[in-house]
């Protein structure tokens, strides 16, 4: 029997597109419509087969796996709980509760994504808006150090480039679009103006823009490889637009200057509100990384890099962030929820995960699962489990179970661990 499920949310990236159509034949996913090339695979390549948990590579029952996980956590003095961004709010809450209870460090993929953006926000604030405001109002859009055509393929069509809105009835024609990046990309090809900045000069370029917006004249012929007339032109357009929006990404957070780059951009955006309405939206990567920030913040006061070791939350980017804790060899056990640090961390940090007992909760066979002592093959939120994910603009979107697989959720496993460590 085939059924069609509409308004399905895809949790691959921070767009959390919730207009996906999934065709089901019995409990098998037979087709996915409207999803982008990257998101589609997350749904239609998903293997919902019930798998048993593993302890040191051996298949065991769930009870035994929970016991093994509890033993690891009981023996640890400095456990790290990491990941969370591809799980749902319900599981994120449990992960923080567990961290609180056992005095763990908890960090999310934010720290290797928009962690520096969080630091900038804490320094200077953040003038932002929801994605619908971009679609409806934005007549000037700047993509800075991000490449949505590769990372968020439907972003252009749904919100920021060709999308038509109340005050942008002609879509693309009603917008002036800039891309600022160190290299041409699929996104820069679609822009009206591409500013190719020299690697590591974003801060200087942003400072120059702030100065130009304030009406100063700069003597340099170019900044960061951008000729002054082109920068002046951008500054003038920024001041003259109706509603400008900057989308920013890893080009700023991962390069020299990190949070200072982002802080300079956020300050520029705030200052532009003297002339026009202006907003900035960080291009959040994982489907619910914004939710991970939210949950950790409402539970502890801080968005990432939190240690509960002293019995109360302490915030320490650089101290309690996963890469640092691992690279310095400080963690003596790890519990990784729905992320794959072995695949994405610098080698020196990832190696430490192989030296310490690691527990993995993941619907997929991640590389981290490959080195873990205990592996729980859990359900995937939005496919065979329901929950909530927060979009990049912090709008919460419900995730519904499309099929029944019998797999436990991250929340259920974490809850059993919490009950056992009580």
């Amino acid at each position, binding site marked *: 029997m085939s059924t069609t499920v509409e308004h399905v949310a895809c949790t691959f990236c921070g767009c959390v597109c919730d207009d996906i159509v999934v065709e089901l034949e019995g409990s098998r996913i037979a087709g996915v419509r409207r999803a982008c090339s990257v998101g589609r695979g997350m749904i239609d390549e998903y293997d919902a087969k019930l798998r048993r948990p593993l302890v040191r590579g051996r298949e065991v029952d769930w009870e035994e796996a929970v016991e093994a996980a509890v033993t690891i956590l009981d023996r640890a003095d400095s456990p790290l709980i990491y990941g969370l961004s591809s799980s749902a709010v319900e599981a994120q809450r449990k992960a923080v509760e567990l961290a609180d209870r056992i005095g763990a460090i908890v960090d999310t993929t934010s720290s290797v994504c928009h962690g520096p953006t969080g630091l900038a926000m804490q320094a200077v604030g953040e003038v932002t808006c929801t994605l619908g405001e971009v679609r409806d109002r934005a007549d000037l859009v700047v993509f800075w150090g991000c490449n949505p055509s590769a990372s968020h393929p439907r972003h252009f069509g749904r919100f920021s480039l060709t999308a038509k809105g109340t005050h942008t009835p002609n879509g693309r024609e009603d917008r002036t679009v800039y891309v600022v990046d160190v290299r041409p990309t699929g996104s820069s090809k679609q822009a009206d103006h591409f500013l190719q900045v020299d690697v590591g000069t974003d801060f200087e370029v942003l400072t120059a823009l702030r100065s130009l917006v304030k009406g100063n004249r700069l003597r340099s012929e170019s900044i960061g490889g951008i000729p002054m007339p082109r920068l002046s032109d951008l500054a003038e357009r920024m001041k003259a637009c109706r509603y400008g929006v900057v989308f920013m990404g890893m080009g700023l957070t991962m390069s020299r200057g990190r949070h200072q780059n982002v802080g300079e951009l956020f300050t520029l955006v705030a200052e532009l*509100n003297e002339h026009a309405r202006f907003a900035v939206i960080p291009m959040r990567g994982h489907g619910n990384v914004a939710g991970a920030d939210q949950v950790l913040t409402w539970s502890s006061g801080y968005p990432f890099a939190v240690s509960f070791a002293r019995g109360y939350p302490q915030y320490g980017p650089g101290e309690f962030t996963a890469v640092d804790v691992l690279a310095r060899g400080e963690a003596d056990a790890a519990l990784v929820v729905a992320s794959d640090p072995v695949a994405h961390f610098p080698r020196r940090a990832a190696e430490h995960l192989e030296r310490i007992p690691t527990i993995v909760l993941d619907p997929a066979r991640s590389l981290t699962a490959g080195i873990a002592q205990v592996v729980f093959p859990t359900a995937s939120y939005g496919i065979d489990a329901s929950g909530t994910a927060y979009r990049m603009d912090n709008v919460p979107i419900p995730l519904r179970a499309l099929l029944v697989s019998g797999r436990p959720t991250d929340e259920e496993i974490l809850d059993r661990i919490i009950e056992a460590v009580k």
Partner: protein
Amino acid sequence: MLGVVGGRVYDPRNGSDGEIRDIWMKDGRVVSPEEVDRDRAEIVDAGDLVVMPGGVDIHSHIVGAKVNAGRKFRPEDHRGSERVRTGDFRSGSGHTVPSTHLTGYLYAEMGYTTVMEAATAPLVARHTHEELADVPIIDKGAFITMGNNHFLMSCIRDGRPDLARDYVAWLLKVSKGYAVKIVNPGGVENWKWGRNVGALDDEVIGFGVTPRQILDTLARVSDELGLPHAPHIHGINLGRSNSARTSIETMAGLDGLRAHFCHLQFLSYGKGKGSVHTSEAAAVAEAVNAHPNLTVDVGQLVFGSATTMTSDGPLQHNLHRTTGAKWINDDVEGETGGGIVPVFYKRTNPINAVMWLTGMELFLLIDDPWKVFLTTDHPNAGCFTSYPHVIKLLMDADYRAEVFAGIHARAREGSVLRDLKREYSLYEIAVITRAGPARALGLDRKGHLGVGADADIAIYQDMDDKAEMFARPRYVYKGGTLVARDGVVVADPPGRTFSVAPPYDPEVEKHVRKHFETTYTVSFENYAMSSQQLPHEEVIACG
């Protein structure tokens, strides 16, 4: 079964002004003595103690998108204000913006058992409710912002009050809201064009409607739907030198309809010299006294650290420009916006000093305590943890005079506060912190200790220093469970969430669906929470 016996009971709704009475409780409610088997009941000796219903906060920003953004961008607020985890009680942090569990503990430890979250955009109501589920002990509800809602403004423009009524009912239902909230009607929409509104008859760009029409429509709709709480209004011109005049004009314009004006202190100023406004609390209080249809809460300023957060986007931009402090702004599609700016209120700052005395004057010049309620518009004018301090200011004229003497001389000049010797009684405190707000909220089982009331009780040791007395109740019961003793939480049962579900013509959904195609980037089906049950939800009847 539980009996609190021999206490001095302050239960204004049931006319008890410190009389010695016994209160009996069973299954979470107050019951008549006959229903209790005294031999088996646990007895609390309340001799020499002051017994009040649990506190009811009618306006506080404790959870949701804005509050959490405030937490996230203020690590400096949290350091030094941590709570250590003990047993099953969670750790937490935050002074002006405490984390969720800590918020529940702090309210309970102060004797408060019901708190209303003051502003939620429907688009992010799901977020609000997820956080509320992590606030233990206290019962709560969420006010839904509607004063800049596109669909509503279209209904007004098109002359469709019937559709507006059905839409409001639908919106409250799908967002699991409790009341209609209005913030700077029309001004937040205009802010998306870099503008604001300055008068009740200014035009909202793109809609051709006015703040006056929005207020009028939402007040009428709230009445027609029989909502338990009147529309909760943060008017236009907040913080400006014409705010008192505007507030008085807004009150008169409501034509006798029910309304609640929140944090009125921020809207009771007149023009002073330079940038320092004057308090026009006397004139505003007079207007409040003259309108039987109105209630207000004060939003008392407390010197010290605060985090201002409001849907009033243009106000926050202005505050950021004035103070230079870091600034968050968030424009929300089709609905509202908002901003956050940290501040530090100082006695030595003439503007802050005027704000402080404006709040005091409102408390002392509004005659009927059933019309004026204690709030600090937490965390805008001060933290909710300062309520005991504010109670002391109201009950102790000498202490108030002492504080008054220490504020900036420019603020003291010409202030009527020096002549106001009124002191609130314990009975009146019970009105402005319990019975009054509960009645204004239409929460029949809150704010009193009559038979059928929720067994929410705060028991205090009477002390001369009222701040100390109210900061650390001897016992706090929530639904008959002892939740705090000597100001320390001892149990954390989950609290309920109150919502309303007024009926509406389902035809409205067709119109809203169409509206979704042009205004929202989420699907209609993923916006509504109507099919979902909240944990511990209780629907309060309308009509």
